[in-house]
């Protein structure tokens, strides 16, 4: 019976893998730095793409990624990208978010996912995790960050913008 169950579970996974597609950012509440509630729906970018970057104050590669994006933030803004950095810090470390982002002087929006509800809803198993969204539709996801990934992401965004402009 056990083997049969495992067999069916595996079969289900493969079956689903070819057919399924959830490609939207779910409607969920995040907190602003001031503690106010904001829904993910209101974060969609009408002019271009939105990049969600899931990070935490204790995650070294996450901070490397955000630092590297911030260093060339003007280029990203020109490409009409909204950067949304979602902190997954829970109450152990969330008090470090506000001083850190001010100390770093990052020039993009920061929201808090304190009980990691959005992280759970998007099946994010570890951070850093990057998601690119047009409207509410997810068009790209990446687990982890290595130096240079932000450049490749930027190139991807330019190519998507080009495709989109051609369609219009």
């Amino acid at each position, binding site marked *: *019976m*056990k083997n049969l*169950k*495992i067999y*069916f*579970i595996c079969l*289900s*996974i493969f*079956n*689903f*893998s070819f*057919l*399924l*597609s*959830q*490609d*939207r950012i*779910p*409607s969920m509440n995040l907190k602003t730095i*001031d*503690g*106010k509630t904001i829904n993910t729906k209101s974060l969609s970018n009408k002019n271009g793409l939105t990049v969600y970057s899931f990070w935490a104050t*204790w995650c*070294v590669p996450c*901070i490397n990624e955000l*630092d590297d994006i911030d*260093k060339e933030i003007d280029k990203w803004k020109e490409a009409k990208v909204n950067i949304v950095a979602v902190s997954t810090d*829970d*109450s*152990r*470390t*969330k*008090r*470090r978010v*506000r*001083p*850190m*982002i*001010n*100390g*770093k*002087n990052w020039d993009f929006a920061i929201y808090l996912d*304190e*009980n*990691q*509800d959005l992280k*759970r809803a998007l*099946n994010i*198993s*570890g951070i850093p995790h990057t998601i690119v969204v047009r409207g509410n539709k*997810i068009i*790209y*996801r*990446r*687990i*982890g960050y*290595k*130096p*240079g990934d932000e450049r*490749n992401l930027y190139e991807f965004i330019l190519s998507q913008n080009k495709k989109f402009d051609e369609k219009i």
Partner: protein
Amino acid sequence: MKGTYMNLFCPKTKSLMKKFKNYLFFSILFLFYFVNYSQFLENMNVSFESYSAYYLDDKKTGDFKLENRFRSNNYLNLKSIFAKNWNFELQIESYMPKPLLNYSPNFENTNISTLKFEYNIKDLNVVFGSIYEQFGSGTSLRTWEDKSLGINNSLLGLNVNYKLSDEINLTSLIGQQKKGFKYSKGFVFGLDSEIDISQLIDSNSTFLFGLSYVGRNDQEIKSESFDNLTNLYSARIDYSGNSFYTNLEITQKSNNPILVFGTPSDTFIKKGSAYLLNTGFFNKGLGLDFTFRRLENMTLYSEISAAGNEFNESIVNYLPALTKQHDYSLTNLYVYAAQPDVNFYVEDLTKAGEIGFQTDLYYSFKKESFLGGKYGTSISANFSLWNNLGGKYDFLNQSYKTDFLSFGEKYFSELSFEIRKKWSKSFENIFLYVNQYYDKRMIEFESGQVKSNIFVVDNTFKINDKKSFRLELQHLSTKNDNKNWYAYGIEYNISSSFSIYYNNLYNYQNPDEDKKINYYNFGGSYTMGMNRLAVNYGRQRGGLVCTGGICRYVPESTGITFSIITSIF
């Protein structure tokens, strides 16, 4: 099968139970195949994670003596919007043939771990099934999941969230708490309200006020000396201005029996409390933060008998250590775990909670300035100090009386200083210095206090946009405990998908020659979008291992581990 998920519905006999389980399993599968071909699929999301290990004998650390060398944790998660306003989530977990080392034995075979129907309309949100929720900062209630820590303390029950107006938000819940695949016998229920006062008075600053109540009713252990119902009342206030913020949270816990030699005492019964004050100042390029916390007899378990269990199960509230969370291996050798509870196991080492503070500073030097250079420089510093509650402790008569703002014996202190500097387009450094004091005697009831100094240098060389190389060097020096350690790690990112690494920790000054052990690990990973494959071979250090504010004793082990993460979106 006592106490398992299905037991909550209708179990009478074991065989009936088994049949029911199989029936449920195949019904769910059938349901999936049905919906597989229906329109609902458009909004279906599936992900699968698998973490497996094959444990090996080790000449240096000894043979693997437990059953099942091969162990595997598997998680299949399905989420769907199956009708207008309705969400559905199912997570099936399989620990076959046994869970990985360090996971609770309550994870057995294959079973349902999360089952949730969620109804969402305008200002109302209702969840039937597994509830993940947090009140305030979690001091009174937090139910959450972290697979890597083996934590899923969700409540199975009903959760209603209603936004009364733009300013007022109400949450209520009731349920039984998950522990492994079992559920607590005790019930947990709660109410939370949050009012945005700034909207009422039309202020530019933010002013939030919150009140919560959490109750736990466990009828398993009856006594005339204590009530089976324990109550937590909490109030919080939160202010944020243009360059200043402050918040205060106070929680009171009603009388609860203290565990003496594993059983709740009829005579040693105490109240609990938590005070949390956080304040900070910020400006462009500068951030300062200060947090004070005092905890006394504060952990709430969904079952009275679960107090102090080694797998951190059945905990209703979240009381993490407020210290800097480190990312480097040697900075995590002597990690502080919060001490929220009363402990009268050892004379002279009696404790009733913790009191202390931590402070953080972040600063960035401007680009093109003398210290900023072409790419800017950022620094951060942290200091934390945690002590036992000061007061009178009477070990023989099992009683104590604490003073409100008195600092007792020191548990832990830490000073850290970090500099991040990018020198050129292709080279970047992180320098970290940590000075720690860790009282093993007070925290772990083992002999000794450890004073240590740790240095870390992290070097990243970017070869091009796809290739990079990282070298990490660490040293810990101490005259106490097992003396000095060094550690190093190399990581080579061959392409944007492929990565390999090797790292090693070595206790080179351990007075015992047999304990001079290289804790080496090497492996690689392949990442493609939402899919990740990773393999590791090596030897894991044993002892108290802390991640994400949760600490557990883990045995030493050697073996091969592999993980698969995949998701289809």
